């Protein structure tokens, strides 16, 4: 009961902030709600949305996946190399690379009993090294002959393909979390792993699958990265994991696990993406001139405000009980 309450409050905080930002932008800037701005914003942030979705599930089980950024970089390189062979091999190769790292993470955490933080820290370094090796330390141009770039640059029904993909992934994620036994097990494991095990829930398998999924989604994000920018980028993805963690936390998922929200995570991604967007518009107005460096300062402050809010809500929830 209390958990539901705080989850709702956490999600509402992010939705309120998101609504306020959109309102602010719509009233202040002429082209803010223009189709071009919206689709550009969604096309780019779809990559982060995919990574954050996988991260949200991992965090809900009480784990963490630091490898997602490097995995995206690796996948972008792999898919760029395969792009000459066609769309399908390129996507399969990129996602496959992500799944392979996810599999390793999952196996090390569940079978090896290693701490998720160090495990994924190591695979982050490994994937990054592998990406640089495969790319020979430079960006790998994709083939424009096979239609591969459409998956990143194309539109379906006037809506960017990456945004469609992210939307479908989030719908799938929401269904998985709220309507399936897998979703209940994810939250049960994060709430209390021992209790989940004693109840006969397939805890190990669920944790394994969550890391596998996170790797696969990061791989997909890497494929979209390569298609969108026309090149596999071995040094992209630095800091993506922390962006994804921030978006997840802002979205109301607790890092202790057991409480999480798919919709809130999406709102968190959009919130952090909008901050950058609004900063651009503000500079365009010319009334102030904030350098791009303010972006991270403001993002950090947003994260601070949201986690402080969450902490207060959480304290309010725990206090009467104890």
């Amino acid at each position, binding site marked *: 009961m209390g958990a539901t309450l705080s989850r709702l409050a956490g999600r509402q905080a992010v939705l309120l902030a998101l609504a306020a930002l959109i309102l602010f932008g719509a009233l202040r800037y002429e082209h803010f709600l223009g189709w071009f701005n919206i689709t550009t914003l969604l096309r780019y942030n779809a990559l982060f949305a995919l990574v954050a979705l996988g991260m949200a599930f991992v965090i809900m089980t009480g784990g*963490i996946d630091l490898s997602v950024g490097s995995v995206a970089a690796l996948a972008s390189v792999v898919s760029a190399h395969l792009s000459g062979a066609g769309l399908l091999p390129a996507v399969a190769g990129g996602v496959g690379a992500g799944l392979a790292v996810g599999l390793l993470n999952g196996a*090390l955490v569940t079978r*090896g*009993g*290693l*701490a998720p*933080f*160090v*495990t994924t*820290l*190591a*695979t*982050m*370094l*490994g994937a*990054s*090294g*592998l*990406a*640089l*090796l495969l790319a020979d*330390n430079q960006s790998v141009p994709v083939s424009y002959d096979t239609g591969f770039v459409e998956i990143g640059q194309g539109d379906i029904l006037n809506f960017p393909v990456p945004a469609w993909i992210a939307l479908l992934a989030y719908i799938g994620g929401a269904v998985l979390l709220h309507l399936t036994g897998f979703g209940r097990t994810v939250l049960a494991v994060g709430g209390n792993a021992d209790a989940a095990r004693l109840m006969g829930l397939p805890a190990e398998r669920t944790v394994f699958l969550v890391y596998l999924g996170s790797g696969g989604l990061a791989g997909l994000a890497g494929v979209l990265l390569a298609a969108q920018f026309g090149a596999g980028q071995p040094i992209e993805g*630095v800091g993506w994991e*922390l962006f994804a*963690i*921030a978006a997840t*936390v802002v979205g109301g998922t607790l*890092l*202790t696990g057991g409480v999480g929200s798919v919709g809130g995570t999406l709102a968190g991604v959009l919130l952090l993406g909008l901050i950058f967007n609004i900063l651009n518009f503000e500079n365009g107005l010319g009334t102030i001139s904030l*350098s791009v*460096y*303010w*972006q*991270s*300062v*403001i*993002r*950090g*402050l947003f*994260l*601070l405000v949201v*986690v*402080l809010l969450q*902490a*207060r809500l*959480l*304290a309010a929830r725990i206090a009467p009980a104890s």
Partner: protein
Amino acid sequence: MSDAGTIAAPVARPRQAGAIAARWGAPIALLLLLAFNLAVTPHFASWQTLYVNLTQVAPIVIVATGMTLVIATGGIDLSVGSLMAIAGSLAPLIFLGLPGLGGVALALVVPVAVAAALGWGNGLLVTRFAIQPIVATLVLFIAGRGIAQVMTGGNLQEFRVPEFQVIGLGRLLGLPVQVWLMLAVVGIAAWVLRRTVLGRQILAVGGNERAAHLAGIPVGQVKRLVYAVSGALAGLAGLVVIAINSSSDANLVGLGMELDAIAAVAVGGTLLAGGRASVLGTLVGALIIQLLRFTLLANGVPDAAALVVKAGVILLAVWVQRRGR
């Protein structure tokens, strides 16, 4: 973690090969690496090699020592790289704006104090607001480098101030000054952790926070202190790095340092769950990672492949330690 309750390291029992590997694995690995290099790498046994490796490893060890203390309490500090950038950006602003020895003295003290204060703020978020260490320090990880970039406009600051750069370019009794700094930091931290009440308190907090609280240990104060120390040491490392480079680039100073420091701590045998920590282990861990990279580069293996090997070594280290417990 099944043994999150242990405060002191369990004594290694001779019959357990795993326990021996866990306890002595890191030093043995370091010795093996040295032996391999002496046999294979040309010109390895030279002062030049020693200086290069010690100079490169010193900032990592300084930061990793603070990280060890934070991790010993069961926390983590992701903000160290950003704090290095803040300190590294602040110092030139001070000594270039205020020429003379007074400016240099201020440039050595103020950035470290600022970094310590920000670290203390991390601790405040962790203790007063019960925010998890990863998230609490993530705030400054994201915002901190931005602050440094805003302070300098993102521009490279170049300088030649020998009085300041002593901490990166000077020599004392034949060894680089930053190596002495590193040894002093490691020595003091190891002594505090092993021999003082504060050290017992740090380990007790990481071992079992509730029990520590019930035993009358000021848990909040201890945690805020270790985060402040971690911040101060990151600030110091930032100063050393810009002194070595004769320039400060807010975009680059300390970039990725949190990962190097955490890796050194993990390889050195400190439990990431807290409650057991070894500063000397961290020194050995950092030396292993540094020497490994040097070995691969000196033998023509590209940097990217060295990353993959580093990943393998970290995994191997934590796996061996897990077997030994």
